[in-house]
C-alpha cells in the first residue's frame, strides 16, 4: 500500500478528517457556526476533489473499494447533498436548547459511510459502509431527544429504526455468509457468470435472497417498507432528508453494482423476487400515501413507490443491450435526490426542532403568503409527480425508456397506474398551497431569518428546471459514467 494508493481515497480521507477536525473543535470550544463552517468546507473540498478526479480515475483499491468514475460521481453527489442538509439543519437546530455540534459530527461520519458504500464492490466494505451510515443515522434520528418539547417522537423513531435495521443487517450478514460458504469469495466481481462456482445451487441462492431482503429493507421496498413512515415522521426533518436521500442512494448504488456485476438476475428466482418487490412497492407506496395528512408520511410512502420505479430499471438492465437502464437508475437517483431534498427542505425551512409543520393543512395558502417558497415546493412536488419542465419528468422518461427497451410491459403498466395514483396526492398538496390563506397562518414566512436555506432551495429549484429543460450535458456525463459499472 503505497502513498500513491491514497490519492484515489482523497475524498474519503477529506471527509473522515473533517470528522476528526470536528471532534477536536468540539473538544476545544463549542460553536454552532464554526462547526457548520468546518463541516461545509470539508464536504465542499471533498466534492470538488471528487469532481476533479472523475475524468481520469478508475482503480480497484484493495479488494474492498473500487474508485471509478461511477463511484466518484456518487461521492460528489452525496457530499453535495450532505452540504445541502447541513445548510438546512443550521436554522432548524438553532433553537435547540442542547448541544448542536455532535449532530454535524454524526452527519459527516454518516457521509463517510455513504462514500464507502458507493465505492464498494465487496461484501466487507458494503457492511462497513452501511453500518457506519446507519449508526450515525440512529444518532441523528434521536438527536433532539433532550430538548424540552422535542418535535415529534425521535425516541420512538430511533428505537424502531435501530431494531429493525439491525434485523435487516443480520439478514444481509447471514446471506453473505451463505454465499461465502457456497462460493468462497466476498468480492462481487468473482461471482459473475463466468466464475467457477454458481450462486444458483443449494443454499447460496437463499443467501442471495437474504441479502436482497436486507437491502430491500434499507431501500424501504415492500414488503420491508413498514418502518419508513414512522421513522420519517419521528426524526427531525434534516435527518429525515438525509435518510431519504443519501441513505437510499448509497444503498441503491451498492444494490446496482451487486446486481450488475454478479448478474444475479440470471437466476429466475431473483428475477421474480425483484419483479414482485417492484410491483408491491409501487402499488403499496402510492396507495398508502393517498389520503395521508402528514407531509413526512406522504413523502415516506412516495419514496417507497419511487424505489419501486427504480427497481424496474434495475430489472430492465438485465435484458437491455445498451446501458440506458443503468443511466436511467443513475439519473433518477440524482433527480430523486434533488426533488426530495427540495421537498424536505421547504418543510424544514419553516419548521424548527421545537415545532415541525408537518400537516398538509399547515401549508394552506402558502402560495399567497410566501410565493417563492411555495413555487419551489410546487416545483418539487410536480417533479416528484413527473411533470415536464422538471427533472422528474426526464427521470420518468428514462425509466419508461428502459422499460420499453426491455419490453417489461406489465411493469410499465404498473408504473403508469402507480404514477396515476401518485398524481393525486402530490396535487392534493399543491391544491392546499393554492387555497386562500387562513386568517391566522401557522407560521410566518422565514425568508429573512435563514437566507442560507432559502438560497440553497433556490439553487435546487433552478437545477430542477435546468435539468428538466436542457439535461443534454448531464445525460452525456451519465452515459460515460455508467459505462464503468
Amino acid at each position, binding site marked *: 500500500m503505497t502513498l500513491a494508493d491514497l490519492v484515489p481515497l482523497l475524498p474519503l480521507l477529506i471527509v473522515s478528517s473533517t470528522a476528526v477536525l470536528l471532534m477536536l473543535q468540539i473538544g476545544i470550544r463549542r460553536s454552532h457556526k464554526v462547526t457548520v463552517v468546518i463541516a461545509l468546507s470539508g464536504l465542499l473540498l471533498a466534492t470538488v476533489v471528487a469532481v476533479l478526479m472523475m475524468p481520469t480515475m478508475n482503480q480497484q483499491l484493495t479488494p474492498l473499494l473500487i474508485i471509478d468514475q461511477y463511484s466518484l460521481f456518487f461521492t460528489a453527489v452525496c457530499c453535495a447533498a450532505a452540504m445541502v442538509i447541513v445548510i438546512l439543519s443550521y436554522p432548524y437546530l438553532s433553537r435547540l436548547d442542547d448541544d448542536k455540534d455532535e449532530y454535524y459530527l454524526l452527519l459527516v461520519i454518516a457521509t463517510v459511510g455513504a462514500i464507502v458504500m458507493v465505492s464498494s464492490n465487496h461484501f466487507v466494505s458494503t457492511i462497513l459502509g452501511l453500518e457506519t451510515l446507519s449508526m450515525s443515522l440512529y444518532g441523528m434520528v434521536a438527536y433532539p431527544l433532550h430538548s424540552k418539547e422535542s418535535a415529534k417522537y425521535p425516541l420512538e423513531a430511533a428505537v424502531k429504526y435501530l431494531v429493525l435495521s439491525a434485523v435487516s443487517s443480520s439478514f444481509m450478514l447471514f446471506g453473505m455468509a451463505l454465499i461465502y460458504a457456497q462460493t468462497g469469495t466476498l468480492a462481487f466481481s468473482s461471482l459473475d457468470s463466468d466464475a467457477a462456482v454458481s450462486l444458483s445451487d443449494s443454499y447460496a441462492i437463499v443467501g442471495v435472497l437474504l441479502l436482497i431482503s436486507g437491502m430491500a429493507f434499507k431501500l424501504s421496498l415492500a414488503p420491508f417498507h413498514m418502518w419508513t413512515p414512522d421513522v420519517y415522521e419521528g426524526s427531525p426533518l434534516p435527518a429525515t432528508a438525509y435518510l431519504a436521500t443519501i441513505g437510499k442512494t448509497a444503498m441503491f448504488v451498492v444494490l446496482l453494482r451487486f446486481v450488475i456485476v454478479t448478474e444475479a438476475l440470471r437466476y429466475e428466482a431473483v428475477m421474480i423476487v425483484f419483479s414482485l418487490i417492484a410491483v408491491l412497492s409501487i402499488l403499496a407506496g402510492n396507495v398508502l400515501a393517498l389520503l395521508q395528512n402528514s407531509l413526512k408520511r406522504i413523502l415516506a410512502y412516495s419514496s417507497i413507490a419511487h424505489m419501486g420505479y427504480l427497481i424496474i430499471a434495475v430489472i430492465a438492465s438485465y435484458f437491455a443491450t445498451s446501458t440506458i437502464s443503468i443511466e436511467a437508475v443513475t439519473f433518477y437517483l440524482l433527480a430523486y435526490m434533488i426533488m426530495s431534498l427540495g421537498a424536505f427542505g421547504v418543510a424544514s425551512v419553516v419548521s424548527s426542532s421545537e415545532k415541525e409543520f408537518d400537516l398538509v393543512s399547515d401549508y394552506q395558502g402558502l402560495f*399567497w403568503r410566501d410565493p417563492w417558497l411555495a413555487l419551489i415546493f410546487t416545483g418539487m412536488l*410536480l417533479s416528484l409527480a413527473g*411533470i*415536464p*419542465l422538471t427533472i422528474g*419528468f426526464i427521470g420518468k*422518461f428514462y425509466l*419508461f*425508456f428502459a*422499460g*420499453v*427497451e426491455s419490453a417489461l410491459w406489465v411493469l*410499465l403498466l404498473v408504473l*403508469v397506474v402507480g*404514477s*396515476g395514483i401518485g*398524481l*393525486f396526492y402530490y*396535487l*392534493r398538496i399543491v*391544491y392546499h398551497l*393554492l387555497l386562500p390563506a387562513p386568517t391566522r397562518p401557522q407560521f410566518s414566512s422565514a425568508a429573512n431569518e435563514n437566507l442560507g436555506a432559502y438560497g440553497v432551495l433556490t439553487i435546487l429549484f433552478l437545477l430542477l428546471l435546468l435539468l428538466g429543460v*436542457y*439535461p*443534454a450535458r448531464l*445525460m*452525456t456525463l451519465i*452515459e460515460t459514467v455508467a459505462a464503468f459499472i
Partner: protein
Amino acid sequence: MILVALIGILFLGGVLAWLSERLDSKLPRVIALAALVLDLLLMLTLLGGDSADGSWIVALNVQWLPRFGISFHLAADGLSVLLLLLTAFLGIIAVGSAWIEITERSGFFYFNLLWTLAGVLGVFTALDLFLFFFFWEVMLIPMYFIIAIWGHENKNYAAMKFFLFTQVTGMLMLVAILTLAYFHYIQFGFFSFDYFDLLRVTTSSAVEMWIMLGFFVAFTTKLPIVPFHSWLPDAHSQAPTAGSVILAGVLLKTGAYGLIRFAVPLFPVASLNFAPIAMALAALSILYCAKVAFAQTDLKRLIAYTSVSHMGFVLLGVYAWNEIALQGAVMTMLAHGLSAAALFMLAGSLQHRIHTRDMRDMGGFWAKVPRMSAVALFFSIAALGMPGLGNFIGEFLALLGAFQSNLPMTVLATFGLIFASVYSLWVIQKIFHGEYSNSKFNDSHLSDLSRRELAYFGAMILGLVWMGMYPQSFLDLTATALQGLLAGTQELVSTVVQN
C-alpha cells in the same frame, strides 16, 4: 424562428403579467392582451406562404437531447397555421371574457392562461414526438391551476379529474411514443423521435395496433370521446369562463390535431383496420352525449356534453380519412371552437349576473336581455348545424366524406342532427322563452350585454358566418397539408399491402 418567437412571447408575457401584478392589478390583463395580439399579427405573416408541394411553411430543427436523438423541431403547415390562428383568436377572446370577471390574483391567472396557450401552440407546431409530448403535458398544469384556483363550488374535484384523465392517458401515449422510437432504433440503428424518421418505421401489425391505441386513447381523452369523456362536464362546469373558452375552443382541438397529424399517418394500416371501431365510437358519442346533454339542468354541463357530441363528428371525419371528411373535421374544429366558446361565455356572463347555472331557475330572459337572447339564439342555431354557419359546413362535409367509407355509422351519426336540434332549442326555450320570474335568483345585476361583450360576440358571429358562407378561404389553407397527409398514408398502405 418565428414559431419559437410565437411560443416565447407567450411564455415571457406570462411571466411579465405575473410580475406586473405587483405594480398594478390592472396591468396583467393588458400585457396578456398585448402578447396575444402580437402573436396573432406574427401568425398573419405566415399566411399565404403555403408552398404547393405540401411542404412546410416555416421550420426550425436544432439538437436538443442527442443521447436519444431528440431535436427541438418546430414546423407549421397550413393545418397548423389555421389552428395557431384559432388559438390566438380565442386567446384574445378569453382575455376579453376574463377582463372583469377575474379580480383576485389576476397576475397569476394571466400567467397560467398564456402558458396554457403557449403549450397549445407548441403542440400544434412540434414535429419531434418528444417535444410534442413535452408541450402536450406543459399545457395541463396551468389549466389545472386555472380550474383549481378560479373555479366554482366543486373546483378541486373537477381540476383533479381533468388532470388525472389527461395525465394518465398521456403516460400511455408516452409509452407508445417510446416503443415507436425503440422500433425505429432497431430498424435503423439510431435513436430518433423525429416525426419524419418515425413515419418510416414499419412494425408488425399487432405491435402497430397497440402503439396506435396508445396514441388513440390519449387523443380521444382530450377530444373527448365516449367513454373517456366524463372529465369534461365537470371541468367545464367548474372552470372560470376564460378557462372554459380555452378548454372547449383550443385544448379539445389538440386531441383532434393529434389524430390527424400523428395517430393516423404514423399507423396507417392499424388505423385502417381500427377505423370501423373508431367511427362506431364517434357515432356513439354523438348520440349518447346529445341525449345526456338534453337531460342536464346545469347550463355549463349541458354545453359540455354538446361539445363531446360535436367532437364525435371530428372523429368520424378523421377516420373516414378522405379529403372531404378531413376538411369537414377541420372545419368542425374551427366552427365548434367559436360556437362552443361563445356558448360558454354566455353561460359565464349569465352566471356572472345571476350567480346560478341552474336552468330550472331561469326563463323568459328575452324580455329582460333581448340582445343577449338574440346572441344566444344565434349560437344555439349554429350549434344545431344551421346551413350558412360554420358548424354546418364542418358537420356536413364530415358526414359526406364519412358516408363514402362507412355507411351505417354515418347514417347513425346523421341522426345526431335531430338530437342537436332537440337540446339546442330546449336551451332557448328554458332560458330565454317562457314567462320571466326572478323568484329563484337576485336579478339586480341582470343587465344586457355590454359593449365589450357585444364586441367579442360580434367578432365570433362574423367568424361563424364567414366560415358558413365562404369556407373556401379556410379550405384552401389546409388543402395542401391534408392532401400531403393523405398521399403519404396512401403509399404506406399500398406498400404494406404489397408485402
